């Protein structure tokens, strides 16, 4: 077991923060937020969105930091140290991270190829047909029928890169990669936004995104959308922040770090909203249609709408396309690194393996699953269904179980609050416990209910019930079952870890 004094630490506070921001800023910031905001009241969405950030997002980030920091372990070890019976939650999160990493990597591989396609706009006049037929060669739903080499090789490259970064460790690998990539992402995406807002018609898109529809504020579904966006965007519930915070030094400021990471993530979302909608507005103006007809999200926005728009640009089309897809690659890779690290850190804690063998086993294992399943004619179907179900019934449900157990069953929040306050400049009060114990579970429960209700009303994505149960139900229930089973195996080595009650330090300027 890695003891406290052996646990590798971040080289600096900025290093930890950039890694935490790199983890939170992912594909969802670029391709999900703008459309969610547009669909849920435009400018008025800002109100529920900020309320969600402050009442659930940042409080939950602080909770995850405090668990990792006090109990100094990957999720299974940290939860086991809180209470032996909670170990399954950690393993559940590890399984969730495994599933998400496997499909997340393939989207990055697509973006790598599309950065290349952008130069000559290889998708031609029909980007949708190009994506589905030529590039992904999407086949019927079912078992894997053939491999697609155009996705296979970039996916292998993505995995080699991620494994290489992780093998270098927390400080020399993860921290260094984020200290390079996050500033680069801001610069590249910043250039893209400047270009986007100077396009003809940009104002139409920004108008559509920011014009407030105040009636939306009284609509419950808008609030569900806002809390959902904050939860999924901040990547809480995967155990990433528990893992990253376990490598912080003992007197790190937890609540202040959570505020920076939370606001940085939202800042990038606002920037992405401006960039994406200015671009969408240009397309609407150029083709004489309403903004709503061009706007979309997810795979459709990035790999169909954007290629179409890039082809419509008269000058600098290749440059604009490369900027957009490189931004997706960077945002995705820094998140993927953090997701895989959850599993790596867990295997190290559980087996005592050194970093490099653990990285090779874990990274190699996830890579094999990823490479076997996703660069195939059926890959898009698996990805779509696994993504929906593991998020709704894995990430969100694990978060719900964590807050209920810690707030109501074991009543650990006062202890964690004290732990945060011992080292942090922004002091937590009872309000933090109220937000986590009441507001967060109510909202997460509501999200879950809303989502379940829709599952029974209409089959997700129009897939057959059998396929949804097999793939969607399989990953969601499988992750939980794995968590429970893995927690039943006894640990051979003894754990004499004792959390340290840090004395409340006199805070102030320090030279």
């Amino acid at each position, binding site marked *: 077991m890695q003891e406290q004094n052996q646990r590798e630490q971040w080289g600096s506070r900025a290093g930890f923060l950039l890694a935490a921001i790199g983890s939170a800023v992912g594909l969802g910031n670029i391709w999900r937020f703008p459309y969610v905001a547009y669909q849920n009241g435009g400018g008025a969405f*800002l109100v529920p969105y*900020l309320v969600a950030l402050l009442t659930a997002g940042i409080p939950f980030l602080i909770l995850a930091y405090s668990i990792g920091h006090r109990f100094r372990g990957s999720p299974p070890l940290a939860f086991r140290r809180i209470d032996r019976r909670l170990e399954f939650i950690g393993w559940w999160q590890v399984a969730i991270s495994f599933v998400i990493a496997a499909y997340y990597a393939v989207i990055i591989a697509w973006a790598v190829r599309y950065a290349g396609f952008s130069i000559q706009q290889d998708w031609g006049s029909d980007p949708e047909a190009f994506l589905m037929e030529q590039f992904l060669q999407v086949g019927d739903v079912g078992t894997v029928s053939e491999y697609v080499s155009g996705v296979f090789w970039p996916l292998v490259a993505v995995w080699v890169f991620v494994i290489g970064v992780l093998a270098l460790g927390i400080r020399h690998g993860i921290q260094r990669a984020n200290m390079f990539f996050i500033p680069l992402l801001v610069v590249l995406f910043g250039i893209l936004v400047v270009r986007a807002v100077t396009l003809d018609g940009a104002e139409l898109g920004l108008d559509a995104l920011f014009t407030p529809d105040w009636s939306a504020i009284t609509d419950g579904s808008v609030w569900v959308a806002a809390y959902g966006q904050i939860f999924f965007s901040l990547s809480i519930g995967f155990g990433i922040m528990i893992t990253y915070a376990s490598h912080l030094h003992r007197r790190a400021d937890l609540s202040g770090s959570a505020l*920076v990471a939370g*606001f940085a993530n939202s800042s990038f*979302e606002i920037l992405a909203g401006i960039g994406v909608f200015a671009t969408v507005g240009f397309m609407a103006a150029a083709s004489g249609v309403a903004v709503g007809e061009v706007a979309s999200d997810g795979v459709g926005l990035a790999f169909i709408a954007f290629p179409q728009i890039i082809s419509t640009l008269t000058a600098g089309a290749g440059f604009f396309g490369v900027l957009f897809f490189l931004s997706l690659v960077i945002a995705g890779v820094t998140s993927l690194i953090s997701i895989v690290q959850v599993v790596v850190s867990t295997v190290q804690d559980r087996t005592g393996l050194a970093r490099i063998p653990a990285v090779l086993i874990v990274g190699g294992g996830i890579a094999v699953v990823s490479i076997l399943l996703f660069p195939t004619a059926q890959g898009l179907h698996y990805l779509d269904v696994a993504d929906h179900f593991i998020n709704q019934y894995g990430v969100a449900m694990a978060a719900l179980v964590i807050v209920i157990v810690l707030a109501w069953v074991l009543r650990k929040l006062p202890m964690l609050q004290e732990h945060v306050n011992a080292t942090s*400049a922004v002091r937590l009060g009872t309000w933090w416990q109220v937000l986590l114990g009441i507001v967060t579970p109510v909202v997460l429960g509501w999200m879950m209910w809303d989502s379940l209700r829709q599952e029974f009303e209409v089959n997700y994505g129009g897939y057959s019930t059998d396929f949804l149960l097999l793939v969607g139900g399989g990953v969601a229930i499988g992750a939980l079952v794995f968590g429970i089973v893995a927690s039943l195996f006894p640990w051979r080595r003894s754990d004499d870890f004792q959390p340290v009650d840090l004395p409340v330090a006199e805070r102030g300027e*320090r030279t």
Partner: protein
Amino acid sequence: MSTAAVVMMIVAIVIVWGGLVASIVHLRRHPDQRDG
């Protein structure tokens, strides 16, 4: 752009980016204390 859209865009930028700047400034003013 309509006035309402411009106002909301500015409000969003000021609150969210302002929140980021304020939290960075606050954190910088309170350096972590290392174990002695």
